[in-house]
């Protein structure tokens, strides 16, 4: 392995840095790919971030990137940059399974919009990354294939559901990656792996070609090693798409993210600093980060999100209800697993879904089906949608008093593999600080705060809908003022 701090090691570099080196022909896209393949060969046997790699496709894309770099035409900041893709984005010609056995062998006939945009920009696809099955989980232990290990401590989880995408960037096995966030599935793994993770406003990035979990909550976003890189990737994947009716048509203006935060008001929600199970190390780390932001000129103000205590309950009705409907498509007829022995259609449904879905997915399918079933709809689903309104209003109120909200991303650092595996409610509580941002559709950034006992801690920045620039501006100011630079796990 390269020694820590080797500034020339391309597997530790940012997109911005590599783009300059590619343009100056100090490195070719093929050499950049080779360096990553070598790193993955050396490390991924232990980390297990990739479910499957796409070496032939990557080689073709890298060669094409080198042609563009030689001719100077069709160049883009992502041309030749290696990317890892969460196994939940349909990728043409590549097996895409959402981390589920029920989709084993499914080769997507088309690209998700986000993937198509990365492809057009000339990014190099290293492979598909592991995730909790259908993005349901907070540790990547619910993958139908295997758990991914945290590169900072292999006995710990990388968070989830986008744990493979986070671990790949943290371990220097991809320059950036994309993932999805439905209750915290980008921000929480970013926090646990010391990477930068960002989910934009709901509808900023098209969901077309994303294997759906909860349609009103699913967000697409990047994992990177700097806030600038986050902005670069977001600028590529964001934007109106006629193939997703909820994908809005508004321009994304990130030109102010380099501005000072002097005079910006940062809200500290009382409830987010008092959640059950908040670790002392995380508290201390966030307090240090807040000092840095204050010194950079931000004004810290107390705010309140009074319905925080009901967020988890509302989320665990809305998300399972939507998934119980979305996952009806896995019927053993159109794609994926089926039971060749079944003699009736019903038997095929039952057997395919029993064998193909793991315990967490089946738990949520039943919970969602129950919440939508006759006699319970008003008490659960309708009630949860009303509480969602109150949670959204809490944020709107708070944003009258502040420009952005800061807190810890996760109440804990990365926990041991197996520690929460048998207690679903304990696992759900991992997302207690992130799921409000999904219920309200807000931009949410997680970036590395000072480590606690050698393990990464995430600082979360939430901003009002459509104001991605504010979250990124606060994050970038923190990055500059703290002198923090991207670190790759010292494996």
């Amino acid at each position, binding site marked *: 392995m390269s020694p820590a701090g080797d500034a020339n090691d391309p597997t530790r570099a940012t997109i911005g840095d590599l783009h300059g080196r590619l343009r100056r022909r100090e490195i070719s896209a093929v050499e950049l790919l080779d360096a990553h393949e070598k790193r993955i060969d050396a490390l991924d046997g232990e980390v297990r971030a990739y479910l499957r790699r796409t070496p032939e496709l990557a080689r073709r894309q890298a060669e094409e990137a080198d042609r563009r770099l030689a001719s100077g035409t069709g160049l883009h900041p992502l041309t030749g940059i290696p990317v890892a893709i969460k196994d939940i984005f349909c990728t043409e010609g590549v097996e895409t399974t959402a981390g589920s056995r029920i989709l084993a062998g499914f080769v997507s006939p088309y690209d998700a919009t986000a993937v198509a945009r990365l492809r057009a920009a000339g990014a190099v696809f290293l492979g598909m990354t592991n995730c909790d099955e259908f993005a349901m989980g907070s540790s990547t232990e619910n993958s139908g294939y295997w758990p991914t290990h945290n590169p900072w401590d292999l006995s710990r989880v990388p968070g989830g559901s986008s744990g493979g995408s986070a671990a790949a960037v943290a371990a220097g096995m991809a320059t950036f990656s994309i993932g999805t966030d439905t209750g915290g599935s980008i921000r929480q793994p970013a926090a646990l792996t010391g990477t930068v993770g960002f989910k934009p406003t*709901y509808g900023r990035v098209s969901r077309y070609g994303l294997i759906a979990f909860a349609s009103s909550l699913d967000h697409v976003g990047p994992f990177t090693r700097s806030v600038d890189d986050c902005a670069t990737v977001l600028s590529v994947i964001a934007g109106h798409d006629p193939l997703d009716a909820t994908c809005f048509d508004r321009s994304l203006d990130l030109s102010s993210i380099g501005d000072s935060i002097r005079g910006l008001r940062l809200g500290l929600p009382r409830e987010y600093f008092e959640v059950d199970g908040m670790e002392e190390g995380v508290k201390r780390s966030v307090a240090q980060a807040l000092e840095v932001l204050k010194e950079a000129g931000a004004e810290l103000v107390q705010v309140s999100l009074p319905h925080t205590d009901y967020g988890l*309950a509302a989320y665990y009705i809305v998300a399972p209800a939507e998934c119980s409907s979305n996952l009806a498509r896995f019927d053993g007829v159109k794609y994926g697993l*089926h039971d060749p022995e079944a003699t009736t259609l*019903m038997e095929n449904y*039952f057997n395919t879904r029993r064998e193909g879905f793991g315990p967490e997915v*089946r738990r949520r399918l*039943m919970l969602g089906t129950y919440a939508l079933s006759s006699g319970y709809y008003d008490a659960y689903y309708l009630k949860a*949608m*009303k509480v969602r309104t109150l949670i959204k209003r809490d944020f709107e109120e708070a944003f009258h008093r502040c420009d952005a909200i800061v807190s810890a991303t996760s109440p804990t650092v990365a926990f041991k593999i197996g520690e929460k595996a048998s207690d679903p409610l304990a696992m759900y509580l991992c997302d207690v600080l992130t799921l409000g941002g999904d219920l309200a*559709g807000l931009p949410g950034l997680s970036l590395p705060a000072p480590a606690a006992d050698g393990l990464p801690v995430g600082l979360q920045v939430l901003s009002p809908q459509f104001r991605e620039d504010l979250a990124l501006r606060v994050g970038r100011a923190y990055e500059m003022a703290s002198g923090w630079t991207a670190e790759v796990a010292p494996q």
Partner: protein
Amino acid sequence: MTLSRDQVRHVALLARLGLRDGEEDFYAEQLSRILDHIDRLAEVDTEAIPPTAQVVEVRNVMRADEPRPSLSQEQAIGNAPVAEGGFLVVRAIQEPDPG
């Protein structure tokens, strides 16, 4: 809220999920614990609160109904476990009620 084994069996039927031996008790226990937490929603006064199904306001999207390129029939059913002559094959749907 405590779910009975019968309720678990009923919900699994609605969700078209087969259960393995012992799973009725397993899910009854786990789902009951989760519902115990969820029941706190009842504490919130939502009398005058409208439901939110969609957080970013969107308008209905219309487009001209014109033919355009799409997946071929072959591509569209290329992942089907069983296909014949361009069609998906399913078992007969006329059958006794499994419940």
